[in-house]
């Protein structure tokens, strides 16, 4: 089901957390709401599921305006970060609860619960209580409970934050599998860009209550609209060089001069600029050579990450396949792929 937030505004007392946000989630897609902690992701989620009243604007589910509809009538499934399983009920009772409040027949409840359990692979856990389950199992139960009433939308608030890294990997694909299997429209709230990129059809990246950019993960990575987006996506992260525009190029604060491709519309010389250079675009191959000293080497297994300190003191990162020929503190001259440089003006807007 398509969901539309139209001019959604939320204030807590005098503090406006979200101001006139407009966001559309397409039918059947999984959208990530990505942003740093405190930017208003959960607030947005709570508005969609009806836990919060919104201060202004509208929320549409399909063509239905649900702005003033109570949570109970919105038919939204939510998986909370803490899973919020009912501790005094068994797994089976937990999953059955939404159907019980609908007053379905016992046999029908049992059939649907079993079906759900099979879907999320927890058939053998049905008699246990939440305290007797591992984090991943609890997560599956929470998913089952959220999906059992066949909601129009599935909301997931940081669903992986409480899992250890191995389980996180497993549940990442599991959640995506379930979403694809049910074809449900889903919103995933997360502050982890890897989760967002790996699980979702599109990402809406938020900062300080505003949506900065909405795009597919690949598009957003290649083509960030702002410095914030470029900095938020990518692991290892992008490196920034601060400086000013010159005619046809860029001069860093420390003096390095970098010629920029003609495709970039440069501001008048003297304006402040920031260059973003991803680690994979700085290395032995490239067209803009630059000298520096290797100040740190981090071995990541298949690849190495090098921190390169430029003479001016600025720093660039480079990621390269394992190589044994460079050592810490060695002076090197590597090159930047000029056409991949991201250029931002002084407000952080991409040029």
């Amino acid at each position, binding site marked *: 089901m398509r969901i539309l937030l139209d001019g959604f505004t939320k204030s807590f007392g005098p503090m406006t957390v979200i101001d006139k946000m407009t966001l559309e989630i397409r039918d059947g897609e999984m959208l990530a709401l990505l942003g740093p902690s405190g930017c208003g992701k959960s607030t947005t989620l709570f508005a969609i599921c009806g836990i919060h009243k919104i201060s202004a604007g509208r929320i549409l589910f399909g063509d239905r305006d649900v702005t003033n509809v109570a949570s*109970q009538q919105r038919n939204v499934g939510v998986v909370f970060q803490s899973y919020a*399983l009912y501790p005094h009920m068994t797994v089976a009772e937990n999953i059955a*609860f939404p159907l019980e*409040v609908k007053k379905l027949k016992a046999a029908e409840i049992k059939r649907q619960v079993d079906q759900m359990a099979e879907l999320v692979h927890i058939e053998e856990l049905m008699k246990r209580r939440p305290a007797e389950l591992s984090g991943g199992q609890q997560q599956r139960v929470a998913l089952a409970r959220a999906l059992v009433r066949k909601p129009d939308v599935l909301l997931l608030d940081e669903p992986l934050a409480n899992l250890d890294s191995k389980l996180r990997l497993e549940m990442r694909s599991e959640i995506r599998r379930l979403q694809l299997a049910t074809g449900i429209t889903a919103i995933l709230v997360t502050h982890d860009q890897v989760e967002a990129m790996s699980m979702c059809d599109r990402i809406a990246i938020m900062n300080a209550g505003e949506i900065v950019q909405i795009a597919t993960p690949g598009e957003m990575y290649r083509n960030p609209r702002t410095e914030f987006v470029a900095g938020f996506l990518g692991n290892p992260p992008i490196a920034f060089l601060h400086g000013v525009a010159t005619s046809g190029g860029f001069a860093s604060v420390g003096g390095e001069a970098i010629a920029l491709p003609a495709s970039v519309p440069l501001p008048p010389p003297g304006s402040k600029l920031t260059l973003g250079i991803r680690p994979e675009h700085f290395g032995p191959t490239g067209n803009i050579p630059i000298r520096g000293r290797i100040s740190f080497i981090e071995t990541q297994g298949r690849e190495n990450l090098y921190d390169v300190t430029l003479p001016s003191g600025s720093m660039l990162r480079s990621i390269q396949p394992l190589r044994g020929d460079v050592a810490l503190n060695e002076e090197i001259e590597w090159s930047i792929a000029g056409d991949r440089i991201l250029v931002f003006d002084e407000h952080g807007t991409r040029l």
Partner: protein
Amino acid sequence: MTSNFRAWPVVLALSIVSAPLVLMYVYLLVDTVTSTAPGSLIPYEFTLRHWTFLWTPVPGRPDIWRVALNTLVFATASSAIVLSLSSTAGYVLSRLNVPFRRFFLAGVMVLHAFPSVTLIVAIFLVLQMVGLYNSLAGVILVKAALDMPLGIWIMKGFYDTVPWEIEMAGIQDGASRFTVWRRLVLPQVRPALLALGLFAFLSGWSEFILPQVLAPDNRVQVLSVYLAGLIADDNNFDMALFKSVGVFYVVPVILLFLFFQKHLMNIYGGGTKG
């Protein structure tokens, strides 16, 4: 505690200080089943004589079983009222958007500290006027009311510890707020209900001033009033009898306390009167 300090001097010192208390309670038990010669501290015989009050009423006093039943009714009913009103009101104050919520909260907090015994003169006169004087119903109602602010306060504290997500999940599952409370939240505070229920029961069982003032009649007498009357009667001084009645009266309290110590500690430590 830490092993760097020797513990025995402290244990010894505290033992000496606690001795009178232990002595009083030990003699309470011993004196009910023995006889001691005047001027002596050591009993000379074992006897059940002091317990005859169980089957032959003390002259001029109501039957002890009748009194015990009254006490049971009094304690049970007042704790049931406290429990039901506190578990609902506490939930409202903890979780629901009612008008004047801050006002209610401040009110409960003030009442929780407010010494309700100061109202006894007015309550006495009111009960006389409405015809509930000398009735169990009246004194039960008053006792429940006076214990209620504490109950609401405690229940609110416990509801506050139930994660919001549980309630949010319940709502998303389509349950009404009432169902959420009944089926999801109330089960989480069961230990609190048990503790508060017990506390209110014990508090009712022990209460003296209220029944003494509001329901002193033989028909509706409770054990505290019965025993106080017995002790105050100068014509019938029989310490062993007093103590036997006292043991009869206190044993349920001690048993409940021993069984549910952990639950009760929460409340006794958290600001009861006294």
